[in-house]
């Protein structure tokens, strides 16, 4: 089990706003997109065979009391220890998400080295990065129509289809309803699937 930090802007997120404006132009009539929000996800893995509890307290203090991860003037965050995060991850009310990561190794060794220099914490194995786009959408039938919106705004295929993820550099997974954290962990840790197998 790993600890998780989610960081988003509390000021206007112009990237998310531009994604909303650009995304709306790609939609067919009858489909509406009311909001897009964006968060950075950091996953803190214990060393092999270790437990996250060994470093979570120090890590929590670093998150809350230093400005290492969060600039409180412009960002908000949720820090979830391995026990706090529960079994599954639920999207914000009425939203669903597209979680994306780079195709290469998701570990950020530079960030880990800087963190340990400033906040020594035995037991931290790796920090992994991903990004989540939360979407508030409605199809003609009043449902969120996540498959349609993912097709239209998710992985880039051509000028009319896809926006948020370039599948040649990134891979993505859908966050619809409660998603087991174990699936999210695997998505970040395992090698990215081949392009044609990505789902």
């Amino acid at each position, binding site marked *: 089990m790993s600890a998780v930090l989610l960081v988003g802007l509390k000021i206007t997120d112009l990237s998310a706003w*531009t*994604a909303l404006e650009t995304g709306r132009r790609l939609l067919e009539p009858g489909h509406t997109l009311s909001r897009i929000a964006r968060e950075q996800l950091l996953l803190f893995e214990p060393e092999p065979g270790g437990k996250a509890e060994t470093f979570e307290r120090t890590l929590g203090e670093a998150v809350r009391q230093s400005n290492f991860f969060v600039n409180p003037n412009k960002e908000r965050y949720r820090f979830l220890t391995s026990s706090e995060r529960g079994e599954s991850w639920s999207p914000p009310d009425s939203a669903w998400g597209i979680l994306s990561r780079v195709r290469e190794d998701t570990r950020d060794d530079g960030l880990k080295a800087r963190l340990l220099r400033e906040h020594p914490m035995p037991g931290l194995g790796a920090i992994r990065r991903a990004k989540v786009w939360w979407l508030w959408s409605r199809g003609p039938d009043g449902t969120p129509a996540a498959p349609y919106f993912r097709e239209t705004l998710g992985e*880039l295929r*051509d*000028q009319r289809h896809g926006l948020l993820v*370039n599948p*040649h*550099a990134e891979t993505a997974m859908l966050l619809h309803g409660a998603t087991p954290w174990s699936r999210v962990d695997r998505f970040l840790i395992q090698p990215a699937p*081949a392009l044609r197998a990505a789902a």
Partner: protein
Amino acid sequence: MARVAVVQIPGVNCEYETARALEVVGLTARIVRWNEPASVWSEFDAYVIPGGFAFQDRIRAGAVAAKLPAVDRIAAEAERGKPVLGICNGAQVLVEAGLVPGLHPGRVEMALAPNRAPRREGYLCRWSWLGVTPGPGSSWYARNVRPGQVIPMPIAHGEGRFLTADPEVQERIEIENLVLYRFVAPSGGRAVRYPFDPNGATLQAAGITNRAGNILAFMPHPERATWLRQVPLELKNAWGESRRAAVGNWEALEGPGPGRILFQSLASNLLSPSAEGARPGREARS
């Protein structure tokens, strides 16, 4: 007279020097805003999308600009055979729009991913060395390059790593010689490590064309190397020697720099008598 549109998308910042580089080789450059009416685009003989940060690189470099109606119109003109050059951010736009490599027209087949060289990531601004592998784009963009010639040129990007996750695309790019410009060692040999391979791009690609050769996505900045005065004094090759020898000689400093060769190549094509007669879209202006 060949007219080139330098496309000004909100956030680009190299349009004026790009226009000057086109003018110095005899082309007529006009800076055209992204939201000009549809009828304007067909008036031009060529298009250059300059460097910068279109839409502040929001979402991903080039991602938002690639969806612009102006890019659709430029793509339609490229279909008719007109050349389109994307420099740095312009290259990112062309890749995100599926125009390069364009093996399956319209399909996005590559990304320009964040730089990733061993022990060196992030934004990089420095001079690099380029070699040319003849391919379908040679005539438009490397006509005046001698075999084996090494061309120094500056790069300035954080996301310049040409990358495809599709093995078939990778193979076709290689087989069809779509990597027109590659990063090389100063000797002209293969760039096997940083800094000669500055960003970890597939096949050390610095510039990739479409199959027809008329669209080039080019990461370095030739407009920043168009005059000898732009060459750094410390450059260790013949260009550096010329630059050092020109100190205090204004006339020599206003002479050509290594990047001009790319614009000259474009001009040679656009200004040739055969091109003057056969240029698509010519009738639209008369």
